[in-house]
């Protein structure tokens, strides 16, 4: 009991450190802007960003909802597809050999190139956006899950063999639960990519979204609004990451008790 309290306190202290650093940077930033007499269209002060955030809150909210929608739909589809392909690659060696290089190639194509291309093919609607999000989120999920699945515990495999388990049985009952921690590490990476993917896909054209709002703010030199937009993007990304982490804790720690 005492021990867990102690570690809890230590974690609390460790969590405070990044908060402290961010605060220090903000203060420093504020001081530079006010003392250095820097024009706001070049670098707005944190207080001005806060003000922009407040003044534009209604517009920001509609754009946030649009982006969040694309990110969540794309992320969910990527998770489903990533898990399916992760299982296929984890289960079948030929499948892995055939697919893995293709997946790596998809990762080397810059999204900046794909976004306008998708706009040409699929227009400026919802579809090209989700496709981009799926493309960036799919890979980490599929690859980490597959890697977790092929990591063998030889003793466990042998035990199951002696019990008379079929290959698929052993896979389902041992390999998949064993691979959950690595699946979640992939899910967390994908979670942080999802909002970014949606924003980039909006740059080339969209009716609404944080990405298109960002380009509008940029072209009208309203830099403080641009910063406010970026701030919302950071908060959203962290939020999705945190949500995945909470689910992970629930499943892995409570149910599976693996660390």
């Amino acid at each position, binding site marked *: 009991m005492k021990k867990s309290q102690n570690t809890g306190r230590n974690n609390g202290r460790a969590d405070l450190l990044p908060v402290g650093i961010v605060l220090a940077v903000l203060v420093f930033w504020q001081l530079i802007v006010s003392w250095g007499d820097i024009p706001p269209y070049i670098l707005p002060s944190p207080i001005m960003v806060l003000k922009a955030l407040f003044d534009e809150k209604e517009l920001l909210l509609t754009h946030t909802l649009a982006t969040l929608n694309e990110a969540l739909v794309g992320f969910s589809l990527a998770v489903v597809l990533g898990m399916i392909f992760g299982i296929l690659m984890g289960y079948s060696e030929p499948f892995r050999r055939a697919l893995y290089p293709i997946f790596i190639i998809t990762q080397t194509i810059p999204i900046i190139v794909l976004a306008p291309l998708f706009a040409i093919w699929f227009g400026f609607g919802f579809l090209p956006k989700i496709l981009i999000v799926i493309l960036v989120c799919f890979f980490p999920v599929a690859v980490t899950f597959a890697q977790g699945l092929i990591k063998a515990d030889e003793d*466990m495999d042998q035990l199951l063999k002696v019990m008379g388990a079929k290959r698929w049985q052993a896979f389902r009952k041992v390999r998949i639960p064993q691979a959950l921690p690595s699946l979640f590490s992939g899910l967390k990476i994908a979670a942080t990519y999802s909002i970014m993917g949606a924003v980039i896909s909006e740059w080339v054209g969209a009716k609404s979204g944080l990405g298109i709002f960002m380009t509008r703010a940029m072209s009208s030199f309203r830099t403080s609004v641009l910063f406010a937009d970026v701030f919302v993007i950071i908060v959203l990304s962290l939020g999705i990451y945190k949500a995945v982490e909470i689910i992970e804790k629930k499943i892995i720690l409570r149910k599976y008790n693996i660390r």
Partner: protein
Amino acid sequence: MKNIIEINRLNKEFLNPEAERQGESSLKVLKDVSLSVSENEFVTLLGPSGCGKSTLLKLIAGLDATYEGSIFLSGKDLRSNNVPVCYMLQKDCLMPWRTVLSNILMPVEIKKGNLKKAREDIKPLIDEFGLSGFENYLPGKLSGGMRQRVALLRTYLMEGSIMLLDEPFGALDEITRIQMQDWLISVWERHKKTVLFVTHDLDEAIFLSDRVLVMSTRPGTIIKELRIYFARPRSRDMVLDPKFNEYKREILKLLSEG
């Protein structure tokens, strides 16, 4: 009594790149091993670390068919037959995400047996294995001795008339180990099963077994068979008997000669 396990001139070597680099083409692990175990007998393989005890059990469990010589289980040649055995590996291999009960019932689940019925059937066994009240615990929350009892009960539920136990108490502290030996011997004397037990602990071997097979260092071969003439049911006092020390002295001498 008929022989449940019958092994004749068994040789086993591992072809591995490591050995090749050292100028040998293979690593010879078992040499001319012959042994037999009759029904409901408790036989122990005792030998130094690395002499091939685990390898021998793996061969008997049917996990590796690359050997010379023959292994017969219940009269069936292992090369052409699949003979189910109850096998407990050196590692306990409990699944950390499954409760004690669902770990224990794993063999039934794999065989697609009636889980509901099995759950009822094993109630007295759970009690006997000292696990009642812990059915819904996760293995991470158990003591070392308890984990071994969970693994033993799971092994017991695997179908097969032979139990292969690979150093089940090897990782336990001395006190727990002695308690587990006392407990195992009482359970075994009630249930009687054919057991081939592996250990490198002399006291454990003599205390538990009808016969002790002493193995040499690698390549392992059986250098001596000792019949342990202590009456059953056995009790801990046995270790104070001068005869016990005589057995021990004899084994020590054999092991030091190699």
